[in-house]
């Protein structure tokens, strides 16, 4: 959210940070995780896995907020996120 001026009583917003982990051998390249990641962290790689699919790769690692959405939408149990650390962020919602 953008403010015209920063409210004096605005608490610091905790921005969670995640690390997304891909298990390329389980992936079938459906693209669900890429299309539904709210932060545009993932992209389709050029590489093939053993089954001949293109798994995703982490394009913008810093943007992951550990929302787990890629993890729950993936039909293959091929991707998950873990909590990195809690950053005291000012860029809330940016």
């Amino acid at each position: 959210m953008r403010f015209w001026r920063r409210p004096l009583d605005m608490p610091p917003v905790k921005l969670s940070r995640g690390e997304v982990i891909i298990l390329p051998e389980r992936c079938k390249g459906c693209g669900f995780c890429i299309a539904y990641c709210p932060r545009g962290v993932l992209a389709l790689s050029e590489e093939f896995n053993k089954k001949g699919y293109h798994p995703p790769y982490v394009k913008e690692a810093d943007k992951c907020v550990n929302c787990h959405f890629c993890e729950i939408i993936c039909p293959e149990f091929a991707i998950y996120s873990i909590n990195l650390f809690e950053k005291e962020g000012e860029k809330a919602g940016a």
Partner: protein
Amino acid sequence: MRGKKRELPGHPMDRLLRVDRIPHIWCSGCGIGTIFGGVLAAIQKLDIDLNKLAMVSGIGCTGRMAGYIKVDSFHTTHGRAIPFATGLKLARPDIKVIVASGDGDLFAIGGNHLIHAARRNIDMTVICVNNLNYGMTGGQQAPSTPLGFKTTTTPEGSPEEPFNFCYLAAACGAVYVARWTALHIRLLTNSIAEALQKKGFTFIEILCPCPSVFGRRNKMGNALETLKLYHDRSVIKNEIDPKEAGIDLFGEIVVGKFVDRERPTFIDYYRSIVCHETPEDNVIRIAR
């Protein structure tokens, strides 16, 4: 940290999966895997004792779920998941029973079993993956195939009106009835958890993309396009009369929790009327 191999925690669902059988057989973009993940997440969320849980499924792509979950499970013959689950529940009333199967298995060949299990209010949670056709056998018409849609057995388009599964389950006596799509994962997970905690016959229908067969034959594009269709067309209408909750792929796809009520289960009545363990009036009073 670079260079050194890090200890990663592994996928959070691995605890509940038979990981040696993964990757599973479902096609790329098939929604069954996502829905299966929702079932596992609900089990994880409730922290159910895995020795007190069983999954039963019939035949079909969806029916394969029973082979991938790491609890006691049984892959029955076509249409017979519910009668097997009924026997299991009556022999072992202390365990939770999940039935996971396809629209064809549960409502075509298995339709009679479903209506009577709902009528008797047998304590089980039925997860019905509705991909609008028989996926496993190459895409024949099912009782869910929408009017005018193509299948191998209706190449000109289906000339039959489909069932409304939620309306049917509710009319037969299910105590919990909900419908979601493979895109409503968090709502679906919560709904499964809610159903698992209820006593009685609980029923959840989930619309699911079948890109290889139904999607291809009806020129619906890839699975992402079907998910987009769910996104654009789904309307959540909790508590609505399921009679009014239709699935119109060109109009509104109504989702939500439609029924949540209490009714004595078959075991309650049996213990009272046949075994005289509890006073009859008690149970009959709850029924009214």
